[in-house]
């Protein structure tokens, strides 16, 4: 499943104040500076609550979180884990 839209909407309304101009699916949050250190924690709290997953400390790495598309794939994997454990 693709969660791009939910993630994008959250970022645009919370960090970009409605100005989505330069935010693409592959934009690195780190390189572009769209999200700061508090922002990334808010973003993680949002996806945990919205998609009913738990992001472990060890998973707080750019490979999982550093763009809309990476985040979307990560959520997909996490939800699959949840389903596998509690079918």
């Amino acid at each position, binding site marked *: 499943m693709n969660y791009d839209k939910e993630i994008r909407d959250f970022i645009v309304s919370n960090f970009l*104040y409605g100005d989505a101009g330069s935010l693409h699916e592959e934009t690195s*949050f*780190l*390189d572009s*500076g769209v*999200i*700061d*250190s508090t922002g*990334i*924690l808010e973003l993680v709290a949002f996806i945990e609550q919205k998609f009913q997953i738990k992001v472990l*400390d*060890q*998973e*707080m*790495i*750019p490979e999982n*979180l*550093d763009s809309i598309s990476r985040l979307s794939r990560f959520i997909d994997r996490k939800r699959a884990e949840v389903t596998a454990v509690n079918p």
Partner: protein
Amino acid sequence: MNIAEIILAKGEDSAPALLQGDAVVTWAQLREAVVQVAHELLARGRSPGDRIGLFSENSSFFVASYLGIIRAGMVVVPFPTELTQPSFDRIISDAGITEVFVSRRFLNRIRPWVEKRGIALTEEASSCANVQSAGSRLTATPSPGYSDARGGDELAALMFTSGSTGAPKGVMVSHRNIECNSRDIINYLGLTAADRAMVVLPFHYCFGLSLLHTHLMAGASLVLNNNFKLYPETVLQEMEQRECTGLAGVPSTYQFLLHNSRFRNTSFPKLRWFQQAGGKLPDACIREVLDAFPPTRFFLMYGQTEATARLSYLAPEDLRDKLGSIGKGLPSTRLEVLKADGSPVVPGSTETGEIVASGDNITLGYWNDPLETSKYFRNRKLYTGDIARVDADGFIYIVGRERGMIKSGGNRVSAEEVEGIIAELPGVVEVAVVGVPHELLGEAIKAFVVTSAGIPALGDAVLHHCRQRLPAFKVPEEVVFLSELPHNSSGKVIKSRLKDLNTARAYSEAVTVT
């Protein structure tokens, strides 16, 4: 002697010098790249003394370019990577920069700026400083100027830092400055070739650069991690995997690790020391670090770009007894605390004075700016602008700063500059910007704004404008709207009273926008 040669002298050829992600650069590779960069520059007709810009995140490209430029006898100018175009332009003009080395990551952003200026651009992909591929491409021909490269009191680097007026000032750092300061630091940290530091601080900042100087000079290695700001977890994982022996940070580094990561529950078997500088880390946080890592030595340090990097340190043995102190001067640096009449304060008394430093690490002043230089550099001494007292044992305690700079997250921010930007907004009558204590940043930037009648509140407009006009670290954390600012009899805003507002809400109509 040329400082790049001194820095590169010790490392073992096959040992790693730099580690970043999966990439490892050995000492042999680094040396080869540095020599190539130097030859390349000389072959292009650049002359000793020319100023060469460097716009790059921390990487082997940065290190090879930085040392190569210095090895060629030229003056390297590392750009803060969060620069806006007007500041970039100003530095290019002020320093008379003729060529800029730009990393892959920043190429798209910087290329138009460089082209507009009509100066040369050396990009990472085609440079000898691209260490990963340089070994197979020994293209640069040896240049006659190579053997008599500069050293000693000649310029090695210009480090641009915010001045009291907000305009960037280029601190002139000599070969001797770097050598002297680095040797002192190597000695008190006891660095050897077996050391390996985790580097999260940018090399364009004097503290980050001091890690490069000291570790490489000791033949040690550096792990470069540029993900800290958003992903501190990657730093912890790499410190474990790469068996780092040390970590250096500004106050926010430690506060962030303590509060936003599993730092204190992680064990780092090889970790030997922590370094902290760049502002005051709250004593409570220091205790937390000490309690979490009892065998690790914690070095608290104090410095300025104007002193190359370091002025003093507090030895781990003294930390608990002298908590809150910046320690004593380095072996080669004499620190005096002088009252307004020029006499030293009495140790153990409540007298305060300005910290004045002398020694071979005191830089040559500000580039092209004799007026600012004469304010802070007099008789070969640096007047730091920091106000301190001295205890009976000679330990120095900072009690305030004179220059009106805000130290936020390790950055120096000029209140006047931020005020100037906010004042651009139509409807702003008066504005005052102050630094207020902040758990994570050391100091947070807080703006107090008075708007004209009829414009009740600008709301988000102030922050929005700041975000457009300023790099992120200069944007206020908070904006408060007031009906008036407190003034003294000569009409000056009484900033101390505004700072007090932070705790006591004296103005009932204050509206806070965050």
